[in-house]
């Protein structure tokens, strides 16, 4: 049977509509049916990335990462109220605080998706200035080790002084905030 819309392809979608006791039958191909919106009321479960990733999660603690005990109480975000069970159904977090409340379990998911749970990219300029300095210190420590290994002690001393300076800056900043 050919599609009654395009008369070109095989009809694979067969619909019976009853409107005001009038029965009508439609025979359409996949394409015409979706163009007409007849597929809208979900024959085929549409693949959704959220469902897919939430499938990687678990609620019962079967796949809890090693070393993390299965939860004895319900895990819930204090800020928005989303529970971990809800998250594993929806596949989306409720607010930025959820990341803290779902902690370790979320980290293992992130590792599965991204192969890492450690951000190395951009840091916001204004709110992240302290974090940026910390990252800089980390980079400089690595450089310091390298210089020492290469026996370039003069250079190494310079870097060491810079690190001290930056560390004081971070401490000073923290005191001010208190």
């Amino acid at each position, binding site marked *: 049977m050919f599609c009654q*819309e*395009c008369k070109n392809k095989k009809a694979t979608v067969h619909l019976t509509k009853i409107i005001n006791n009038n029965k009508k039958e439609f025979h359409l191909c996949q*394409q*015409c049916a979706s*163009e*007409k919106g007849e597929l809208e009321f979900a024959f085929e479960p*549409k*693949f*959704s*990335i*959220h469902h897919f*990733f939430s499938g990687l999660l678990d609620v019962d603690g079967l796949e809890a990462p090693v070393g993390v005990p299965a939860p004895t109480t319900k895990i819930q975000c204090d*800020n*928005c109220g*989303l529970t971990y069970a809800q998250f594993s159904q929806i*596949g*989306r*977090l*409720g*607010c*930025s*605080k959820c*990341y*803290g409340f779902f902690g370790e379990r*979320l980290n293992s*998911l*992130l590792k599965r*998706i*991204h*192969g*890492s*749970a*450690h*951000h*190395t*990219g*951009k*840091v*916001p*300029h*204004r*709110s*992240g200035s302290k*974090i940026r300095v*910390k990252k800089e210190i980390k980079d400089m420590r690595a450089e310091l080790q390298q210089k020492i290994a290469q026996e370039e002690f003069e250079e190494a001393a310079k870097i060491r002084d810079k690190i001290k300076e930056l560390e004081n800056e971070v401490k000073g900043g923290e005191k001010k905030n208190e």
Partner: protein
Amino acid sequence: MNEGNFQMTRLSKWMEGAGPNSEIVLSSRIRLARNLKEIPFPYLASDDQREKIYSLVKGLVENNKETFENYEFYNLTELSQLDRQLCMEKHIISPQLVKDSNNSFMLLREDEAVNIMINEEDHIRIQCLYPGLQLENAWELADSLDDLLEERLDYAFDEELGYLTACPTNVGTGVRASLMMHLPGLVINKQINRILSALSQVGLIVRGLYGEGTEVVGNIVQISNQITLGQKEKEIIRNIHVVARQLIEQEEAARQALLNEGRERVADRAGRALGILSNARIIGSQEAMQLISDLRLGMDLGLIELDRKVLNQLLVVIRPAYLQKIQEKELDSYERDVCRATLIREMLEGKTH
């Protein structure tokens, strides 16, 4: 805000057909996902909270009049379903925003190359869409807009996890870089499936024209990064750039092979496509997309003279919402096929030699 006369039928910058490698790369897109601290993500936020995010961005825009001189706010909830669909067909907004746009706004630059979406899946999404292969340029622009917004907004950022997003697949950099590529040579020589499946091994996703869950039509694919956490933005962009170079090389080789094997055959294919497109009275979108691809290949190989801009425009104007928008009424699929054929004939008239 422009609420009345919504003129979306103009050209977007990406359709100009300029830019490096534009014979293979149609467009480059960078999208940054950003959220504000503590306020629930849009799907959980209350109307007041959504409204608050909009007014924060609005205030910021008013304080930076010079930067945002050519931008305009649109309330997506107040646009008709058709207008929203039209925005999607032009790749300005995501399919998701067409369906669900409660208190969602967009801040759109005049040339439609920049769009800042408010209350989509995340509180704020910055999108830059350029013609040809220019991911770096798109990134630099998105990066600078991001800095500007951050001066006033408190982003949800975690030292370990980076920018926090509604979906765990975007966390970290929040960057999605994607390229729209036309690869008819690789489809004809049947290499495409092998190459595309190899892409998934280097952390890239291949999708159809309109992103997630859409099929590949007209030999156009969209490739984008899968990983957003653990790599620097520049690494993500470089990775996709390197792969794009490879794809371009392979596609060029395939096209050259086609020419060497049978110049006449390729010219015939393009000529027939032109014949059908400039004479058909009824045409479906899938057939039209395939023929436009044939025509584009003929043009790229110098077998047919045509304006690239016209072909890029055709990709958009033959879509259902666009057709209905210019006809200013709803059309059933038969009426659309007639209208599509008429529009294509008109656009090709006088454009070929």
